[in-house]
C-alpha cells in the first residue's frame, strides 16, 4: 500500500499543478471491486470448479479466495489512486493502478453530463457522474461514485463552466438556475407507452415463440399427420388452437414485459429546459439524469408507430453529434410518449423558430404509387401465393390482397418532404411513421440515389446527411428525378458562411462513423 501511495505522490509531482485532486466517495471501492468480479467471474468459476471438484462449499471458498479478496484489495487501491479536480479551464482526472493515466477534459468539449444511480447506489446515497465529449467513442470520464449532493454540484459546475466558455451560449450561465419543465410522465402515460411500444419486437417474440413451440412434439405430430395426407385431422386434433393459444401467451408475456419495462425504466420521467440544455431524468430502481446541450442537437425524429397512430400518441428522439456506438448510434429518447397535439410545442422548445403546423410537406412523385403497388403485389404473390399453395386454400390471397393494397397506399401517403425556413423535414413509414426535423445548417451533405427500378421509373431518393443518428438518416423517397436533384441542390445551399456553427468534431470521429 505504501508503495502505491508513493507512486501516486510522484505522479502528482509531475503534474502541471501541485493542487491535490479530490477523492471519490469511499464506497467507490465496492463498485470497483464489483466491476473486477464481473470481469473475472468466469475464469474464477472455472478455477473454483476444477479445484473444488464436487464440493460446492469448497468451490465457493476458492472463488472467494481467488476473486473476491483480490477484487476488494484492487478496488481499494484504485480508489486511493483515483483523483480528480475541476480547474478553471479543465476537469483533470488521474487514474489507473498499473498504468497511470491523466485525462484533461475542457468544459467546452462536453456534450453531456449524465448522473446515474443504480439501485444499490441509491440506497447508499451515491451517484455516478459520466461525462461525454464530442468525438470520444466511449464515455470520456466516469466518476463512480460520488455523494449524491457532490455529484449534483459537480454537474452544475461543469455545465456552467462550459456555458461560460462556449461562444454558442454566452448568456446561459446566468439562466442556469431556472428550469422550465417540458414533460412530466405519470404512471398512466407510462402504461400507455409500454402497452403500445415496440410492436415489431412483439411480433418477433411471437414468431420465435411459435418456432420454439412448434419445434418438437407438435411439429412431429403435424408431420406424421400430414404424411398420412390429412390436414383435416390436424384441425380436428386442435393443433391450430394450441398454436394460437401459444402465440397469444407469448404476445401477452412480451406485452407485460414491455409495460413493466416502461414503468420501471421511465418512472417519474421529467424533461426540463435548463438554460441552453435539455435535462431528462427517469428510473425507478436506478435514476438516470442526463443533459443534452441544445447547441449539439443535430436532428429530432418524431415516431408514430402503427399501434400509436390511432391513439394519437408519438415518441420523440433526438440525435446528437459525437456519440457513436451508444443507444442506437447517437440517437437518444427525448420523450418516450406524448400526445400528438403536444409535439409542436415540444419541438418549439428545441427549435424555437420552427412552425411545424405551417409546414406543407410535398408528396412523393405520383409514379411512386405504381412502384409501391407493384412491390405490394410481389410480396402478395410470394407470401400469399406460397401460403395458398401450401394450404390448398384461396384464403391467404383473399385476405392478403386488401392488406397489400392498403399498405401500398399508406406507404405513399406517409411520404413527404419539405424545406421549411431554416428546417428540413422528411416523413415516411407505415409500421413506424418517422418524421425527421433537421435544422438546415446541420445538413452535412445531400446524396441523390437511384436504383435500377427507380431509373426505369425516372424516380430518385435524396438522403439528407446529418452528423447524428448513425446509419438511420432522413430520406426523401421516390421524388421525380429532376425534383430530387433540385432539392439536393437546395439542401446543399448553406446560408451559414457567416457564423452558424456546424459540428465540432476531430478528424478521428469523422473517420469512425
Amino acid at each position, binding site marked *: 500500500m505504501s508503495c502505491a501511495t508513493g507512486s501516486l505522490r510522484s505522479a502528482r509531482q509531475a503534474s502541471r499543478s501541485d493542487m491535490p485532486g479530490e477523492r471519490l466517495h469511499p464506497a467507490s471501492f465496492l463498485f470497483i471491486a464489483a466491476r473486477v468480479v464481473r470481469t473475472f467471474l468466469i475464469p474464477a468459476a472455472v478455477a473454483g470448479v476444477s479445484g473444488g471438484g464436487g464440493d460446492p462449499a469448497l468451490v465457493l471458498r476458492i472463488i472467494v479466495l481467488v476473486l473476491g479478496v483480490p477484487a476488494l484489495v484492487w478496488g481499494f487501491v484504485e480508489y486511493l489512486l483515483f483523483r480528480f479536480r475541476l480547474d478553471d479551464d479543465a476537469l483533470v482526472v488521474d487514474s489507473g493502478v498499473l498504468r497511470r493515466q491523466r485525462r484533461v477534459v475542457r468544459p467546452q468539449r462536453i456534450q453531456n453530463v449524465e448522473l446515474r444511480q443504480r439501485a444499490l447506489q441509491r440506497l447508499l446515497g451515491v451517484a455516478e457522474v459520466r461525462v461525454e465529449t464530442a468525438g470520444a467513442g466511449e464515455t470520456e470520464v466516469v466518476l463512480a461514485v460520488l455523494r449524491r449532493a457532490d455529484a449534483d454540484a459537480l454537474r452544475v459546475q461543469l455545465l456552467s463552466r462550459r456555458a461560460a466558455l462556449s461562444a454558442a451560449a454566452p448568456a446561459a450561465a446566468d439562466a442556469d438556475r431556472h428550469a422550465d419543465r417540458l414533460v412530466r410522465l405519470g404512471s398512466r402515460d407510462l402504461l400507455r407507452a409500454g402497452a403500445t411500444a415496440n410492436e415489431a419486437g412483439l411480433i418477433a417474440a411471437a414468431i420465435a415463440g411459435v418456432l420454439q413451440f412448434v419445434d418438437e412434439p407438435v411439429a412431429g405430430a403435424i408431420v406424421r399427420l400430414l404424411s398420412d395426407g390429412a390436414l383435416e385431422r390436424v384441425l380436428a386434433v386442435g393443433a391450430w388452437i394450441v398454436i394460437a393459444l401459444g402465440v397469444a401467451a407469448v404476445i401477452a408475456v412480451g406485452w407485460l414485459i414491455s409495460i413493466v419495462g416502461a414503468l420501471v425504466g421511465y418512472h417519474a420521467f421529467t424533461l426540463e429546459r435548463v438554460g441552453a440544455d435539455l435535462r431528462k431524468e427517469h428510473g425507478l430502481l436506478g435514476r438516470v439524469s442526463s443533459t443534452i446541450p441544445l447547441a449539439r442537437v443535430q436532428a429530432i425524429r418524431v415516431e408514430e408507430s402503427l399501434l400509436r397512430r390511432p391513439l394519437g400518441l408519438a415518441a420523440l428522439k433526438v440525435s446528437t453529434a459525437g456519440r457513436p456506438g451508444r443507444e442506437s448510434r447517437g440517437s437518444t429518447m427525448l420523450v418516450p410518449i406524448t400526445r400528438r397535439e403536444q409535439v409542436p410545442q415540444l419541438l418549439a422548445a428545441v427549435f424555437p423558430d420552427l412552425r411545424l403546423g405551417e409546414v406543407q410537406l410535398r408528396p412523393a412523385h405520383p409514379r411512386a404509387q405504381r412502384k409501391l403497388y407493384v412491390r405490394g403485389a410481389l410480396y402478395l404473390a410470394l407470401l400469399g401465393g406460397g401460403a395458398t399453395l401450401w394450404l390448398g386454400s384461396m384464403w391467404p390471397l383473399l385476405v392478403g390482397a386488401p392488406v397489400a393494397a392498403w399498405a401500398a397506399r399508406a406507404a405513399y401517403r406517409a411520404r413527404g418532404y419539405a424545406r421549411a425556413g431554416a428546417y428540413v423535414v422528411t416523413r415516411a413509414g407505415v409500421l413506424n411513421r418517422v418524421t425527421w426535423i433537421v435544422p438546415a445548417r446541420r445538413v452535412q451533405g445531400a*446524396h441523390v440515389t437511384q436504383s435500377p427500378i427507380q431509373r426505369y421509373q425516372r424516380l430518385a431518393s435524396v438522403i439528407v*446527411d446529418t452528423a447524428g443518428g448513425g446509419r438511420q438518416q432522413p430520406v426523401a423517397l421516390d421524388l421525380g428525378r429532376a425534383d430530387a436533384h433540385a432539392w439536393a441542390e437546395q439542401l446543399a445551399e*448553406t446560408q451559414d458562411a457567416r457564423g452558424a456553427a456546424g459540428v465540432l468534431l476531430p478528424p478521428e*470521429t469523422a473517420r*469512425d462513423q
Partner: protein
Amino acid sequence: MTGAEMLDPRVKAVWRLSYLVRAGVVAVLGSAVAVIADLPPAIWVTLALVLAYGAAAFVAPGMSYRRWSYAVREQDLVLRRGVLVRSTSIVPFSRIQHVDTQRGPIERAFGLSSVVVYTAGAVGAALVVPGLDAARADVLRDRLAALGAAGEPV
C-alpha cells in the same frame, strides 16, 4: 466554378487489375477448400465466381469510368458515380472536416492516387474520388482543404 471532370483513364486498368486479383484470390482459396476439405462441388462455385469476376473485370471498369465525374463548384463538391445504383453527392465546402490523399499498391503502380473527403455526416463520412493522377490529386486535396478551411470554423 469548374465544369465536371472525369477521372484519369488509367483508373480503368487499376479497377480491372483489382477485379483480376480478387478472381485470383477466389480461385486459390476455392481450390484449396475443394482439395483440403475434399468438397468437389466447391470447384464449380469457385469457377462461377472466377468467371463472374473475370467478366466484371472486362465490363465494369469501362462502365463505371463513364459514370464517374466530379466537379468543384462555387460552394460545394459534387460527385457522380454508380453503374447499377447511381448516386450524386453534394458536399458544401463548409462541411468538409478534412481531406486526405491515399494510394493503394495498384494505384501506385499506375502513378494514381485517391482523394478522400471526410465530413461529419454518416452517409458521406468518407467520400472517395479515386483514380487521379498523383499530382492532380495533391492539387485537388490542397484546394479542397483550403476551401473547407475558408468556410465555417468546424
